[in-house]
């Protein structure tokens, strides 16, 4: 026994020399540090931060009332005294509406994605992990949702529940569920057969434990990436609803509504639709940059 012990120790000591002297890192933190080096992603993050802070601070910013109608001063151009970005067809201050509208639109985007994410993940997990009967039933249901044209699905939902932000949000998030379910199912299918999951089962872990501690955390990265790209899509989809007339309730400012209503003034006052369009673009752009960055850093293959 003696010589073996020393041998072991000798190997241990050399281990210390050869092992890189790195600080302990959480893979998420490592990813975040890598992200910090990605200029485009940082730009996206910064822009998102600025936009978020601005819209969050809307109540304390010195802005005119976004719903105050002033028919005498309608359709003022950009740079008008007292209305930095001009006014809309009811004489409401555009800057103020853009900022207040951002609160709504960004919330719609994130919440809709959140709903889709949660339900899609649950469905996908059950289908992918438990397979068999669950898989068949859930995936059929997902197929049905996907085969149902999304605009029509959303219109129908909104028509049924009544127009309004809440329902638009529900509609677009239901539209998003199949995509998340598919992503998660794919990951769950893959991970359930990975050796580390088999190892867990060999250790006696139950399904719940494996799902919560192993499958879900590993499914997250592709989901986060998909979700970051989808927030923009959801805002746009909600805008599409507004175009058909099924979006948010006036006089609430919301970028989609502003864009689609402003579209009617495209000839006389193009800034009415250009500005909310640009705002949506900025958010989508920054989320895309961030999402692309996230994809790179969360991909284990990337360096």
């Amino acid at each position: 026994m003696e010589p073996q012990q020393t041998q072991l120790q000798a190997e241990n000591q050399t281990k210390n020399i050869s092992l890189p002297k790195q600080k302990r890192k959480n893979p998420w933190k490592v990813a975040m540090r890598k992200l910090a080096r990605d200029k485009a992603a940082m730009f996206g993050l910064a822009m998102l931060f600025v936009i978020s802070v601005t819209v969050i601070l809307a109540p304390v910013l010195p802005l005119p009332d976004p719903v105050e109608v002033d028919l005498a001063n309608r359709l003022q151009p950009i740079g008008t005294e007292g209305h930095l970005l001009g006014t809309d067809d009811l004489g409401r201050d555009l800057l103020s509406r853009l900022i207040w509208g951002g609160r709504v639109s960004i919330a719609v985007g994130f919440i809709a994605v959140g709903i889709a994410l949660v339900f899609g993940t649950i469905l996908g997990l059950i289908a992918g992990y438990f397979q068999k009967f669950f898989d068949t039933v859930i995936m059929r249901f997902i197929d049905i949702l996907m085969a149902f044209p999304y605009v029509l699905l959303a219109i129908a939902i909104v028509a049924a529940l009544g127009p309004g932000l809440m329902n638009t949000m529900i509609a677009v998030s239901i539209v998003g569920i199949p995509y998340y379910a598919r992503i998660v199912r794919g990951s769950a299918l893959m991970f359930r057969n990975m050796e580390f999951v088999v190892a867990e089962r060999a250790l006696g872990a139950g399904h719940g434990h494996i799902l919560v501690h192993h499958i879900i955390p590993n499914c997250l990265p592709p989901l986060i990436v998909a979700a970051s790209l989808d927030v923009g899509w959801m805002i746009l989809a909600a805008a599409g609803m507004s175009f058909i007339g099924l979006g948010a309730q006036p006089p609430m400012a919301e970028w989609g509504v502003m864009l689609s209503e402003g579209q009617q003034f495209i000839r006389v006052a193009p800034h009415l639709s250009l500005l909310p369009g640009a705002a949506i673009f900025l958010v989508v752009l920054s989320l895309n940059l961030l999402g692309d960055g996230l994809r790179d850093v969360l991909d284990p293959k990337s360096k």
Partner: protein
Amino acid sequence: MTALLQVENLEILFKKEQQYVSTVSGVHFHVDSGEMVGIVGESGCGKSVTSLSIMGLLPKDFSKVSQNTKIHFNGKSLTEITEKEYRKIRGNDMSMIFQDPMSSLNPVLTIGYQMNEMILAHTKLSKKEARKKAINMLEKVRIPRAEKIIDEYPHQLSGGMRQRVMIAMALSCNPKLLIADEPTTALDVTIQAQILNLIKGLQKEFNTAVMLITHDLGVVAEVCDRVVVMYAGKVVEEASVDEIFNAPKHPYTIGLLNSMPSLTDEKDRLEAIPGAVPLPEEMPKGCRFAPRCSEVMDACLESAPEKRMLSSSHYCSCWLYEEEEVG
């Protein structure tokens, strides 16, 4: 006579976090016409990147070969020719077989297509003739039903068959040099034996020089004429097969041989080399093997040893043999 392939002072750098880090450096070796040279070393020691640098296939966006490197092949300086000239050499004068036969063949193209395009690129044969030639080559590597297999897709073949396809393809333009990067690692021993046998036979038949990359010393002993042992991006020893196995000099080579379980001898306990290979960005200052070496001396930690010639065919880079260099 000059060697068919002469690699001098090869240094390969990889971009890591905006900086180039040298992963392989100061590598010298040569391959003569018709000989089979084994390159051995543990995973990550730079065998593959060395062969890729010879083929000119290193990923361009994040790796490069240093300016001082000289690679002469068949009278040409490969570091100086254009990409177009290189293309003419690749596949024609020198070709390569890769480790994993599944991922190295394009899954969506037929065997025939993948073989033909190479033959067509380098010869003046018509499509029909190229196909004939491909079938001929497949028969040479003893693939049954070659006429049929040629129209099949890689996934329809077993690992051993795929590797034989790779060999047939690599040899179809009668190259002067064949680089085989771990051609049998992914295969079962029984298949490995078939493939090695095949390579050896074909090498004799076509008088091709072969650079056989492997981490299995047993394979080297079976088929090679000469061996180059690499450790952490450096050549530590270079010798004929007999010398390596009967009179290994470098402590790393010795350690490697000792740590192998043997089919012929009975060992109670394996003599493992302690520790692990250092990462490229954390290479020790002196001899790269020093931290794991049982014979480590002060000099080893100070500076890297030079290449010493121990006999006409035996070179070693180790401070132990400082005095022994011959002529």
